[in-house]
């Protein structure tokens, strides 16, 4: 009991320690350890655990909080990096649903995308990874998720998405480096336009590859990205896939599904993340920036 209770109490004090300001936390821990030692000597295990647990679960309201602590920033950044790709996929699904509603749906989707990008940028700007290169995992993680996820469909054609997705990731990395060097007003426009262009290139290549696999006319490939977003029925003519005659655009549509909207959502997310981080750093006093660097 003594060993277990002591171990748990030490763990709890470690958690409690991180809640206090750096300048006083060591003194506080010494003080708590002295009390814990007395309680342990008196074999008051539950009292000892209660003492440590109360400290661990209570946030010390020493003064009004003006900024996020490092702990919260780390948790927030980790959460956003994990939830960002998921949010991108959810947005893509929601966007597909809304686009079925026509022009209103498209506008609503654009608004959702915009709000999502802003939210992600805001969360990222308050994150612990206050570096420009922090945008790279924001791009590469979703990219890896897409590359690993799509072949799970088990359809041979979907494997053709891997190379275009890697191309898109490479373009996004270059784009983010360039956006990071551009001045503020230009970086917004160029960043989002280039994110659209990168998605367009990747989707065009993917459709071109797949159309070749199913022996369709590849000359429509470059139109597929805007057509899929605007839900315009364009594309190659009838095909004889699976022994039946289907409209070619239907076959390609079935293949690409959420691919264009996913790339677009993730690209916008990455650009918004990078710009958000950069602008946040621009608003932080020099001393703080140098301390973080």
């Amino acid at each position: 009991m003594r060993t277990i209770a002591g171990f748990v109490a030490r763990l709890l004090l470690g958690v409690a320690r991180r809640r206090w300001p750096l300048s006083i936390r060591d003194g506080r821990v010494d003080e708590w350890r002295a009390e814990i030692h007395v309680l342990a000597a008196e074999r008051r295990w539950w009292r000892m655990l209660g003492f440590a647990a109360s400290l661990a679960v209570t946030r010390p309201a020493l003064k009004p909080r003006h900024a996020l602590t490092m702990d919260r920033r780390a948790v927030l950044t980790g959460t956003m990096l994990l939830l960002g790709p998921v949010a991108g996929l959810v947005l893509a699904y929601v966007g597909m649903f809304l686009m079925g509603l026509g022009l209103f749906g498209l506008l609503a989707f654009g608004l959702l995308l915009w709000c999502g990008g802003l939210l992600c940028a805001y969360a990222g700007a308050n994150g612990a990874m206050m570096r420009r290169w922090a945008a790279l995992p924001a791009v590469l993680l979703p990219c890896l998720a897409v590359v690993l996820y799509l072949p799970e469909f088990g359809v041979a054609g979907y494997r053709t998405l891997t190379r275009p997705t890697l191309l898109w990731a490479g373009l996004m990395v270059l784009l983010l480096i360039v956006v990071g060097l551009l001045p503020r007003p230009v970086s917004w426009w160029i960043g989002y336009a280039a994110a659209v262009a990168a998605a367009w290139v990747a989707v065009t290549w993917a459709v071109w590859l797949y159309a070749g696999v199913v022996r369709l006319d590849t000359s429509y490939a470059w139109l597929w990205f805007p057509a899929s977003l605007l839900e315009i029925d364009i594309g190659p003519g009838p095909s004889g896939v699976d022994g039946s005659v289907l409209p070619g655009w239907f076959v390609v549509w079935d293949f690409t599904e959420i691919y264009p909207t996913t790339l677009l959502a993730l690209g916008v997310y990455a650009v918004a993340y990078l710009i958000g981080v950069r602008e946040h750093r621009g608003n932080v006093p020099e001393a703080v920036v140098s301390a973080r660097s």
Partner: protein
Amino acid sequence: MRITVPVARVLSALVGDPEVDRYGLDLMGATGLPSGTLYPILQRLQGAGWVDARWEDIDPVVSGRPARRYYRLTAVGVTEARQALAELHAQTSPSRARSSARRRARISARPGVTGSAT
């Protein structure tokens, strides 16, 4: 200094005998407050200059335990604590309900004292 009920309990325990050093566990027992509430209050009282803290003067090797930290009200703290507790008592006393309404206006005008127990 914002005088909340937990703060008032700590002040009450300390002002009972201002010459005696109190330590964390001791104050927890006297106030009934958990450690997570007590230590932030002690830190705030220290910051306000009402409480002074010092380490116990022992040799941990000889004593067989780490040194404790002792707390005691400062001279300013004794005065302020007594005044704050008196005002709090005046506000919460049922027999003085009428007069407390008048006093409340004066108390709330004092800088640093909210005059309400939360």
